[in-house]
């Protein structure tokens, strides 16, 4: 891309491929930021949905393949890797989740692998996929699903619903409401308690999703800036060290999302916190 309109380049790279109702009433892909703004809530980020679907399928198929081939005897290299992943997640769950629940460990595994794969898309050179998309006639394409708040909030809300569900299932509606209203100042401080506890509750999915989104968005932004502001022969000087560092962030953010999910669910299970 050319240096003169680098701000346009950056804006182009930050734009999702959106599908929705166009101003003339037909369904279709938005070709300008104005069209996207007009679509409002009832539109879909096709790139986010598509890439995360493909990555989820990659994870599911690989692991399901290993699960189908799982044998007691000498494991194959791939089975070894899958078992290592499973034991790593299982260890994390065992160390922070005290109760017994068949959902938490598969949930944690799915979260870790899916987010890890989504984050890894950040390391694909940033012009490859938008370039391909342009060649295929698509106006925009944002490759990294975890830089889309829809994706991170989507997962965080699912986790949040699970937290609510288990809180009510374990403590009953009364217990859950009591937890919201009678702590930490007793029944005379009820309004204050309610505000504090509701903020505490809401902050869980918000922090979960914003942490992941913020890290990945910032990382992506730095790659875009490097690509926009440096000539092509000098970009590697900054982008390679950043990519190596970003590898750490990619893994760490996936791990943090997983661990916090486990911890939140464990808190939902506990009588008092």
């Amino acid at each position, binding site marked *: 891309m050319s240096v003169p309109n680098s701000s346009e380049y950056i804006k182009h790279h930050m734009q*999702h491929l*959106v599908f*929705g109702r166009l101003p003339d009433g037909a369904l279709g892909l938005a070709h300008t930021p104005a069209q*996207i703004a007009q*679509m*409002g*809530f*009832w*539109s*879909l*980020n096709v790139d*986010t*949905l598509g890439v*995360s*679907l493909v990555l*989820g399928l990659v*994870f*599911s198929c690989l*692991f*399901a393949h*290993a*699960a*189908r081939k*799982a*044998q*007691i*005897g000498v*494991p194959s290299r791939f089975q070894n890797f*899958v*078992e290592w992943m*499973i*034991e790593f997640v*299982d260890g994390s769950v065992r160390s922070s989740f005290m109760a017994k629940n*068949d*959902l938490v*460990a*598969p*949930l944690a*595994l*799915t*979260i870790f692998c*899916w987010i890890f794969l989504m984050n890894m898309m950040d390391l694909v050179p940033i012009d490859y996929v938008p370039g391909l998309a342009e060649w295929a006639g698509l106006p925009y394409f944002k490759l990294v*699903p975890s830089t*889309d*708040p*829809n*994706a991170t*909030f*989507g*997962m965080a*809300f*699912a986790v949040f619903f699970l937290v609510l569900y288990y809180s009510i299932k374990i403590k009953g509606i009364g217990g859950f409401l009591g937890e919201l209203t009678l702590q930490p100042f007793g029944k005379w401080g009820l309004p204050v308690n309610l505000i504090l506890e509701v903020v505490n509750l809401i902050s869980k999915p918000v922090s979960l999703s914003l942490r992941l989104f913020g890290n990945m968005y910032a990382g992506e932004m730095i790659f875009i800036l490097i690509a926009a502001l440096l000539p092509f022969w000098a970009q590697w000087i900054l982008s390679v060290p950043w990519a190596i560092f970003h590898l750490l962030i990619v893994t760490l953010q996936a791990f943090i999302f997983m661990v916090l999910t486990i911890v939140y669910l464990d808190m939902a299970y506990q009588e008092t916190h």
Partner: protein
Amino acid sequence: MDINATLIGQTIMFIVFVWFCMRFIWPPITQALEARRQQIADGLAQAERGKHDLELAAKRAGQVLTDARQQASEILAQAERRATHIIEEAKGHARVEGERVLAASRAELEQQIYRAKEDLRQHVAELAVSGAEKILRREIDARAHADLLSTIQDQL
């Protein structure tokens, strides 16, 4: 930050993937891991038992070897005793036999001596008689003095 219906799609997709993982991925792999753990534990226990058995067998083999060695030395000692016994017996037999042969030869010798004496006596008697005959031929009748001559012969 533009939130749109993608949020709902992502949530549904997430739930489906988690369900899939919970249904088809996690249980078989953890079951396989547990089964392998059990198998390894069994194998180790079996190896331990095998080692124990081997130790016992080695101990028993040592015992048998010691017994056999002892028995062999006993048999050897017995054989030696028997050999000396046989030698002693043979020596005794030989001595007896030798004495017997000696006695027999001594007896025979005595017999021969006696026979020789007898012969000698005969000869001397004959010589005496012939001498006396020669002397007496001129003086006496052989017939008249026969009983006298036989008396002399007996006394010789």
